[in-house]
């Protein structure tokens, strides 16, 4: 099993719901608390597993705004795991989730250095590295209703821009989406084979337009045109009624 997320950049409005839901669940979760520093002070910050950034692609007036939630990609070739000297970082064989055993981490930051995606954040209060657990403490919890056994970010996403599932299963929703929508990995050239995939904004075909019926005769002045239209409508009135009642 290869668990991970698909994130739809076509529908993500950048609302930060997933990031806060993540914070909320995980601060009392298996690697909690997620410390906050200066929560009411000059430089409020803290540990987050999921951060949303906003970009502009292309220049005015062709610009498009893109919102990108980013959390651990649970890479197939996770260098954050291999560089870890203590073995605190590991990738579960059962499902591919990359985790940090909080009792073994020495806080050397090397895994964070190895991660291209900014997925790992040190909890300065505790001195250990923390990261997305893919809500391992939710997804397997049989005491939760089955439909709730999903990562908190996926549960909460108001635009259904987040999908959770098994990438090993070619028929899973995530695999299908990646196939059909051209899902891609971020920064693939680093070579870590991230499991999480992003769906690019959909390309819309040009919208059809109603046929122009306006007289193109530019010589007539505006009020003449108006009167000619009104005249047309006056003539049409009765016949228009004959079609009424048909619906």
């Amino acid at each position: 099993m290869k668990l991970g997320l698909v994130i739809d950049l076509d529908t993500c409005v950048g609302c930060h719901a997933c990031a806060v839901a993540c914070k909320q669940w995980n601060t009392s979760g298996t690697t909690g608390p997620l410390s906050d520093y200066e929560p009411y002070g000059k430089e409020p910050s803290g540990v987050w597993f999921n951060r949303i950034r906003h970009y502009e692609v292309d220049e005015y007036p062709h610009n498009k705004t893109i919102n990108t939630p980013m959390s651990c990609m649970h890479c197939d070739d996770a260098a954050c795991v291999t560089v870890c000297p203590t073995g605190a970082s590991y990738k579960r064989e059962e499902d591919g989730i990359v985790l940090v055993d909080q009792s073994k981490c020495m806080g050397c930051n090397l895994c964070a250095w190895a991660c291209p995606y900014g997925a790992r954040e040190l909890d300065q209060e505790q001195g250990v590295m923390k990261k997305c657990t893919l809500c391992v403490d939710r997804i397997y919890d049989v005491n939760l209703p089955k439909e709730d056994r999903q990562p908190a970010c996926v549960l909460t996403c108001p635009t259904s821009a987040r999908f959770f599932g098994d990438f090993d299963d070619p028929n899973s929703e995530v695999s299908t989406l990646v196939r059909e929508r051209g899902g891609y990995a971020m920064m693939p050239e680093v070579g870590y084979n991230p499991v999480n995939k992003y769906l690019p904004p959909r390309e819309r075909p040009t919208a059809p337009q109603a046929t122009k019926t306006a007289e193109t005769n530019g010589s007539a002045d505006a009020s003449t045109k108006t009167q000619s239209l009104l005249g047309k409508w006056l003539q049409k009135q009765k016949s228009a009624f004959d079609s009424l009642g048909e619906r």
Partner: protein
Amino acid sequence: MHPAPSVIIFTVTAGAGYGLLFWLALSRLAGLTPTISNGQFIAVGIIGLILVTVGLLSSTLHLANPKNAWRSFMRFRTSWLSREAVFAVLFYPLALLWLLLSGNAFLSLLVAALCIVILVCTAMIYASLKTIRQWNNALTPVNFVLLGLSAGAALFTLITLIQGVYTPRVLALTIAVIAAAAFSKLLYFSWIGQPAGPTINTALGFTRATVQLLDVGHSSDTFLTKEFGYEVARAKIIWARVIAIVVGFVLPLVFLTGLLGTPGIAHAALASLMVLAGVFVERWLFFAEARHVVTLYHGQQRT
């Protein structure tokens, strides 16, 4: 990358220590300092071990949770940091035995090799990171080894001069290794100056138009921006490079090659100080110039 003083001190002093011990071992094997006494030999060894120890202690200051530092031997199979830790710890009993046995040839060979191995391991911690192109290249371990050996050689020259066991071959080797280090470092500066690696476009998957950061999603610095978002003015970088080259390589070579008179203790002392200072600046640059790819997500156009 944030140039953490603890890590700079660690790599510079431990590097110099391993370099010094390497030369001590080599001198034993190659008979570079035939007149050295046992006491003098041990003294040099202790100086080297002190440097190494200061460096290693400094490195633990970098740990947020040092009580788990002992666990760092666990992942020898994949982690260069683990390998470095293992070798660094193995090094102590070996080195002490070596000193006690007054430089047994076999042990000398082992010590010399281990010094290089440890320098390589340290370098590979950085060089193995694909996320930082300024580190992720073959010149990184070459530099670490040559700079460690340069500092060690300058110190060895100085100490042997003081001890009166100096031979010109020591000086020749010192000059050679410093020159090699200078060449390697210049090559490195030129290498990292070439545009390469991921860009903000590939980072986000939008490669057909410009991509600019609109909002990073947090008002204050985070762990990520503090750790990776180190920004230095280009002019400062240039100055630092000039200082590193001039102080770390050019001036020591000037002192040691006799351009300012026959090298004596004063020359060697100045050269040693300068090499160390130069390497210190070089190491600061090594971090300050390193651009982690995560900064692309924070708005950098390229690394």
